[in-house]
Each structure stands twice: as structure tokens, then as C-alpha cells.
């Protein structure tokens, strides 16, 4: 009784909504199998082939770019090495020129110093000669004055040698 009531109620609700319908199952199967066949055999391989060709080109482009970059880096390194060499050479030349100039300067300074020393010595000699001449003149004048003063005081001329010795002694700081 209960089972027949349930069955009647189930019939009222219609077919089981969970159960697959044959037409949906078979059409779904057929549609998918056709789709799978077309995708597997034609479409995916074609798209994939295109992708691989483009990726290959991109990879080749990358490799070329890397090779170009490496070559450029080599060129830059070579240029920098040449630059460093030129700079070192220029520095050496500047240093050499500086040394040459320094040596020349020192030579010229030494020459000038020698000349100055010679001129100074000549001047010293001239001064000394002038000083000796002046001294001789002063001594002669002092001797003459001394001789005349002695004549006036004593009424006779003093010995010239004595006068000269006394004058020399006086002029040389009082030492007789």
C-alpha cells in the first residue's frame, strides 16, 4: 500500500530529474567526440605549430640579441683597454715632460745662482777694494794731521813710521 502510494507520487512528479536522458547522452557524446577529433587532428596541432614557430623565432631573436650584446660588450672592453693604454701613455709622456722641465728649471736656477754668486763676489771685492782705498786715504789724512799736530806741539816732525803705526793701531780698534 505504502509502496504503491510512493510510486504513484513519483509518477506524478514525472521522470527522475537526475537520470540522464538518452538523447542528451548520445548527442553530448557525439558532439564531444567530433569536437575532440577536430581539435586533436586539425586545430590544436596547427595552433601549437604556429606557437612553436613564433617561440622559435623569439628564442632565435633572444640568442641573436645576446650574441650582439656579448660582441658589443667585447667591443666596449676593447675600447676601454685602448683608452686605458692611451691614458697611461699620455700620463707617462706628461710625467716625462714634467721631469724634463724640472731638470731644465733646476739647471737654469743653478746657472743663475752661479751668476749671482760670481756677481756677488765681484761686488764684495769691489767693496773691499773701495773700503781699503778709503781706509788708506783716512789713514793718510790722519797721519798727515797727526804729523802736523806733533810739529806744532813739539816743533819737530815725528818719525813717519811711528805715526803710521800709531794711526794703524788706532784705526784697527786701539790695539798697538
Amino acid at each position: 500500500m505504502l509502496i504503491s502510494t510512493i510510486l504513484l507520487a513519483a509518477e506524478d512528479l514525472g521522470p527522475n530529474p537526475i537520470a540522464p536522458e538518452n538523447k542528451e547522452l548520445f548527442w553530448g557524446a557525439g558532439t564531444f567526440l567530433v569536437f575532440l577529433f577536430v581539435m586533436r587532428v586539425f586545430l590544436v596541432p596547427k595552433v601549437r605549430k604556429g606557437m612553436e614557430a613564433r617561440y622559435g623565432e623569439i628564442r632565435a631573436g633572444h640568442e641573436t640579441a645576446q650574441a650582439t650584446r656579448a660582441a658589443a660588450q667585447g667591443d666596449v672592453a676593447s675600447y676601454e683597454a685602448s683608452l686605458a693604454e692611451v691614458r697611461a701613455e699620455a700620463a707617462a709622456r706628461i710625467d716625462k715632460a714634467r721631469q724634463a722641465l724640472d731638470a731644465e728649471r733646476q739647471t737654469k736656477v743653478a746657472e743663475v745662482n752661479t751668476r749671482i754668486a760670481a756677481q756677488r763676489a765681484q761686488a764684495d771685492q769691489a767693496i773691499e777694494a773701495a773700503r781699503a782705498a778709503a781706509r788708506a786715504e783716512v789713514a793718510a789724512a790722519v797721519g798727515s794731521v797727526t804729523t802736523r799736530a806733533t810739529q806744532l806741539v813739539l816743533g819737530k816732525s815725528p818719525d813717519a813710521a811711528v805715526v803710521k803705526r800709531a794711526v794703524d793701531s788706532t784705526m784697527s780698534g786701539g790695539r798697538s
Partner: protein
Amino acid sequence: MNPTSLLAFEFPPINMLLRWQDVAPTINKVVLIGIAAALIGMGIFLAAARKDPKVAPKGARNLAEVIIEFIEKQIIMQTMGPSGLAWTPFLLSIFIFIYLSNVPGVIPFIQMPATARMGIPAFMALMVWVVYNATGIKHQGPVGYFKSVLFPPGVPKALYILVTPIEIISTFIVRPFSLAVRLFANMLAGHLLLVIFALLSEALFQARDRILIPVGVLPFAVLLFLTGFEVLVAFLQAYIFTTLTAVYINMASHAEH
């Protein structure tokens, strides 16, 4: 007062929501969605295949390449490794067909996922079952495959009394059953939820008692949220089905699993 009469809310019989009249002999809305899914999938790849592959991809070509790369990188490489790349067309077809059968559930005026009926999920699960068992037999030989399934290596022999029946049921019955039911039940539940909240919103907006009309905003907001959620579910179910297919094929290919 009877609330049903107050809201004029009547939930239609379940078969009215799921069973569709034939538009041609043996062809109903679900069948049409399945056919459309296959045609759209083929259309995208046909358009993609016709475009020059050497220029930067855009439009259909870009879409096709994104899907292929998604299947290869996010499913095959994660579950099968590089040896599984030969399965790309098969897994790609499964993913596209299921996704395009799921997504009409949220497309206005169609609003029916073909996978919310058991036909397509049942066939797909059955096909996967045949494919992974055939792959296992091909790679390990019939004896080796059934031996590795029934007597998994690394298990103490005494445990085979328990493990072997479990493996038989798991591999040959539960796997295809769960594949089909997971897809079907998720899509059916989503479809019914959308129907419930759409009918509830309509009933509240058209209620005779005017105080109930603003309340209709709540189920309508839930309806909008669930529609967005179903977009995610449509993708997720296709992804899960495809991933599990890849896992099962990979497990059948290698005895150590």
C-alpha cells in the same frame, strides 16, 4: 495568512526547470547548448589557426594560446610533468567543452548549463574512465595494470585484504561516478539556487502587500552575487574535471603510483 499566497510564490516542478521540450526530433535546449559549446570551441580555434602565427597574437589567437598554455602549465605540468604534454588536445577539449557547457547557466535568456543534466557529465566521466584504464593497460600491460591497481606497491601484504576491495571500488566505480556527480551536482545546485532567488525576487517585487516590495532587494542582491559566483563555479568545475582526468591518466601510466 498563508505566506505563499501573500507572496504569490510558487516553486515550479523540478522537471519543468530541467527538462526541455524538443525543438527538433531528439534535440532539446541541453543538446543545443552541447552542440553550441563544440561549435564555439572549434570556431575559436579555427579563427586562431587562420591567423598569422608569427605576429603577436591577439583576439581569437590570443585566447586560444592562453587556453593552451593554461592547460599545459597549470594542469599538465602540475599533475603529469613534461611526459603528459601529448595529452594537451584531449585535456584541452575536455576543458573547453565542459566550460562552454557550464557557462550558459549565467547567460541571460539561455540560463541553463548543459552539465546540470546528467547526460554530458555521465558520458564525459565514462570516456575518462575508458581512457585512463586503456592508458594503464597500454603502459603497464593488462596484468601489470590490474596488479598495480589491486595490489598497490609499498602496502604491507596483510593490508591487501582491506586495500584491494577499496582500490577496486575507488578506481573502477567511485572515480567515474564522483567525476560525473561532482560536475552535475554542482551545476544543478547552482542552477536551482539562481532559479530560487530569481523567483523569490520576482515574487517580492510583485507582492500585493507593498511593504514587501523593498524586501525584494535582498534576494535580488543574493541573486547577483550567486550569478557572479556561478561564473567562477563554471570555470572551477571545468578545471577540476580536467585536472582529475590528468591525475587519473598519470596514475594509470605509472605503476609506482
